[in-house]
């Protein structure tokens, strides 16, 4: 894994791969993607009649394919796409396809910091997961909700392990779904299983399940909580002690339960997407304390700020002391940090990014069709026709901004390293 | 006889009025509280503008497609309801009575007009009764209580006109008039007659959702 320290943090602007030029050489090109370090820009292009490939920094892959889709960059900056030849599919990384081909592949997953690539695959209507070209030993009748562990080595998914005839509602209600971890299915079957979560060490899995049409609860490593609730949302593991929490519906609204005991006192109209601070000492969630009024709740205390449409993309600072999120009111998006709403109304915004020490927050935003980066509430002044998530340098003094310049400035893709103090002050 | 008269014209009037006002207010308040607890969202969507827009379309004769489709019913229902409410309030005898007892008064109807209106109410009741017997769907929907209610509503009007014109047995009719009038008031909050009080809310809510959310007409 390449560390952030080794990226190019020299202040200034650097053009990459003459994007403006190669963009016109292909008759057909899809939207570009950029590696996290900003050193590579890539897009799916048509190389010749009915043959597609990926162009990276102006150079196409050597191989072409019948189809290419879902181009992304791995955390270690390799372009990866799902490719097809003669109606079979596989993964191609840096232009090289895996050995094994399948009837379909999708759901490319990788951990935030690891190089492993995982996909869902189907062959002869049997479903399984493939990590780094190695398929699971077991196959299933269906497979959804694929996730990978934080180190990218383990994968889990909701699988159907029992078939039932069409429209057999009785059999369905006996429970035909379960969770498979690295190909091994839990023995217990449920009426439904939905979102999953891996523990930090990748050794445990929790699932949101329904044991009848009416009884919702959480199962951890195949063991079901005894209590049932009228509804639950996705569970999360505590980063240190591996206990499991989940929003659960109780008579007074929604609350939070840990290992099936209710731990918050207030009832919310809605409570979901809860998250732990990195050391596990705080829990925050998106909530609606009243109907139609959205905010962030931390440790059962709601922010004063309210949004009347939606709150999304909440994130903790690395030290766990700050929270940032996006909120939408009256058709405009806003960025909010620690209960304060930045005074810029946006057409769209992306998940805010904290500097490593938590002292600065940056977010990508779109307004009137052009993109910019906002740092601590102030736009950087440069606008782009496309942009990607900014990244702070490890010491927090600089920020990497990646974007395509407007046509009148040359339409080129460049990576800019800015001094945070200079932009933010 | 005299005791009953005293009762009916004294304490029972108060009882009826208190039950009517208290019962109506009580039920409405209770429903508002239940709504807060169980259907809180209806408060979010209630819009006075759209509620009023809808209510107006439904209290203006032939203001809705439904009313235009049933002209006879609409005509009778409007005449019936107007007379039903106006007659007792603006009847000369009532106004004078109230002026004598409480010292407040207001304009009243010429007696001939009141007579006609009373007869219209009674005819309205007969029309509704006939509908309940003749029209297949209405007959199916009718409960025994619906017939009793018609009787309860017709009674004060029949006995009222009877008493006023001093037809034979009018003394008894007079007592029955007071008692049945009081009975009707007492029944109001607790029977289907309560539709009177619910109308602004159910119609208003329908209008709010239709106008404010669904952007469509509901008449």
């Amino acid at each position, binding site marked *: 894994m390449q560390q952030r320290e080794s990226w190019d943090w020299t202040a200034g602007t650097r053009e990459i791969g003459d994007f403006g030029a190669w963009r016109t050489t292909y008759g057909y090109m899809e939207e570009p993607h950029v590696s996290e370090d900003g050193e590579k820009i890539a897009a799916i292009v048509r190389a010749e009649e009915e043959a597609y490939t990926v162009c990276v920094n102006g150079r196409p892959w050597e191989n072409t394919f019948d189809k290419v889709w879902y181009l992304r960059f791995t955390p270690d900056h390799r372009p990866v796409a799902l490719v097809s030849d003669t109606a079979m599919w596989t993964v191609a990384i840096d232009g090289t396809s895996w050995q094994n081909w399948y009837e379909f592949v999708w759901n490319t997953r990788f951990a935030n910091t690891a190089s492993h690539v995982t996909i869902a695959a189907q062959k002869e209507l049997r479903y399984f997961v493939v990590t780094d070209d190695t398929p699971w030993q077991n196959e299933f009748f269906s497979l*959804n909700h694929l996730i990978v562990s934080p180190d990218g080595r383990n994968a889990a998914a909701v699988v159907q392990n029992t078939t039932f005839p069409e429209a057999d509602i009785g059999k369905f209600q006996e429970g035909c779904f379960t969770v498979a971890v690295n190909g091994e299915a839990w023995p217990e079957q449920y009426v439904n299983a939905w979102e999953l979560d891996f523990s930090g060490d990748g050794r445990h899995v929790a699932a949101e399940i329904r044991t009848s049409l009416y009884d919702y609860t959480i199962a951890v490593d195949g063991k079901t909580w005894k209590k049932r609730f009228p509804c639950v949302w996705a569970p999360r593991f505590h980063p240190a002690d591996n206990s499991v929490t989940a929003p659960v519906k109780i008579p007074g609204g929604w609350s939070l339960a840990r290992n099936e005991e209710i731990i918050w006192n207030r009832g919310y109209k809605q409570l979901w997407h809860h998250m732990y601070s990195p050391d596990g000492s705080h829990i925050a969630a998106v909530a609606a304390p009243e*109907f139609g009024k959205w905010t962030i709740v931390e440790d059962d205390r709601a922010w004063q700020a309210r949004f009347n449409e939606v709150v999304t993309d909440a994130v903790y600072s690395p030290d766990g002391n700050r929270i940032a999120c996006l909120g939408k009111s009256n058709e405009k998006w806003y960025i909010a940090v620690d209960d304060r709403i930045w005074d810029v109304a946006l057409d769209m915004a992306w998940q805010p990014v904290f500097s490593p020490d938590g002292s600065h927050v940056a977010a990508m935003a779109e307004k009137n069709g052009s993109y910019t980066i906002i740092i601590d509430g102030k736009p950087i002044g440069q606008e782009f026709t496309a942009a990607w998530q900014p990244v702070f340098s490890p010491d927090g003094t600089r920020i990497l901004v990646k974007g395509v310049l407007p046509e009148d400035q040359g339409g080129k893709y460049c990576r800019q390293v800015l001094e945070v103090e200079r932009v933010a002050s | 006889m005299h005791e009953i008269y005293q009762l009916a014209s004294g304490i029972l009037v108060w009882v009826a009025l208190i039950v009517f006002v208290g019962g109506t207010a009580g039920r409405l308040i209770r429903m508002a509280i239940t709504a807060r607890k169980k259907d809180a969202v209806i408060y979010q969507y209630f819009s006075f503008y759209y509620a009023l827009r809808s209510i107006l379309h439904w209290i203006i004769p032939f203001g809705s497609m*439904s009313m235009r489709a049933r002209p006879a019913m609409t005509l009778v229902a409007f005449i019936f309801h107007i007379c039903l409410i106006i007659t007792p309030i603006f009847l000369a005898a009532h106004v004078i009575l109230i002026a004598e007892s409480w010292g407040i008064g207001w304009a009243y109807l010429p007696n001939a007009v009141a007579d006609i209106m009373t007869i219209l109410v009674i005819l309205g009741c007969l029309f509704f009764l006939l509908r309940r017997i003749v029209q297949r769907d209405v007959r199916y929907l009718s409960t025994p209580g619906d017939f009793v209610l018609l009787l309860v509503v017709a009674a004060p009007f029949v006995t009222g006109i009877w008493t006023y014109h001093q037809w034979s047995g009018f003394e008894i009719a007079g007592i029955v008039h007071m008692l049945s009038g009081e009975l009707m008031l007492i029944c109001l909050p607790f029977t*289907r007659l309560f539709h009177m009080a619910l109308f602004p809310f159910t119609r208003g809510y329908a209008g709010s959702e239709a106008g404010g959310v669904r952007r469509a007409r509901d008449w």
Partner: protein
Amino acid sequence: MKTSEDFQAAAEEKRIYDAGIEEGAKKLTPEKIRSVFNELMQTEGGARLEAYTKACVHCGLCSDACHHYLSNDRDPRFSPAGKVKQTIIEIVSRKGKVDADFMKRACEIAFTECNLCRRCMIYCPFGIDVAYLMLFVRRACHQLGVVPQYIQDTAHSHAATYNQMWVRDDEWIDTLQWQEDEARDEIPDLRIPIEKEGADIFYSVIGPEPKFRAQLIYQMAVIMHAAGVDWTMPASQGWDNSDMCMYTGDSEMTARLKKIHFEAALRLKTKRIVMGECGHAFRSVYDVGNRLLGWKMPPLQMIHAISFYSEIIEQGRLKIAEKFDRPVTFHDPCNIVRGRGLHETARYVINQVCTTFIELEPNREHNYCCGAGGGVINCGPPFKNKRVQSNRVKADQLAAAKKKGAEVVIAPCHNCHGGLEDIIRHYELGLELKFLGDILYECIQKE
């Protein structure tokens, strides 16, 4: 009343066998019905239920509003208030002390004799929402496990796959790519942009589109291309905006389905959701599911295909090459007309694209339901004949338009299509049925 016994007898004769209802009812005991119902009354039986049941003056003004009543020789059991009388009034007044047979009948009424079309609501002086009451009965049926088999199976599909038709995640993506391939024979650079983050429009459809009517996705792709729209569809679950759980009374699943749909659009950072030509899906997203989740209005703007067409035509982005010259008529779908007032918008589009337009009578907010909506068609084969017979007025209404010259019926809703198709065939009306998108696709300038 005496006469009601005759109707009851007639009902016994016609009893339809449905495995979901029968098997479910076998597991019921009077105690279970009572406890489940009373619990439901405690938690969800609120002021609306009370007001609607108490305000009704049994006047029958709603009867003529209902196509079931009109089509079944004005049998009063089919009048809106008649259905209320046979179901919720009875259970409430008996405080839940009803037996399994009663629940079977109540289930059949609530699921197959009411389309939740809300036409009666605009004929009742009090605005009583009979659809709300029938949904309350359905909610009770769901909690008691007495639900028609086919619609319950659909609800299971929603729960297991987050779509209506048991479409697997790979099948969905594969279908999009297949349609893109097909369309590229016609327009070489056309694209169905999958997972395009930051696109303006998130386009969502209902489960049956990839399953049975994939050409609709093709056509929409062509329309998007011609209008130069920046759009996307997700490769994840949440692509399906439909919702039969809303109609089986499984509110928890409805909420879950709408959450996943909105979150797919939010995750892709799109600004608006455009929904395909479906009515019930629109209702579930616009004012049912969002409310269950705590959203007063949808968290991001969402519009029906009709509004979208109208917008791109009005802005001059979509050009009509040649108008559709066969006489058309238009069926106003309940869920986007009484449900969202799109009647004039639809007429604007039709007049832009078609030469001759003939109105159905009645029309706009007063149009009769197709008979398929409200999950009725989803109750499947056992109830098909009953459904078609229960909408004879629709056939009469269409026949009248045909007499005036109409050859094509436009219905911008999947359920309406299903319902009208059966009616047109059964009553041998000889009318052609189209989506608005079918006509647009035929008539627009494609490059």
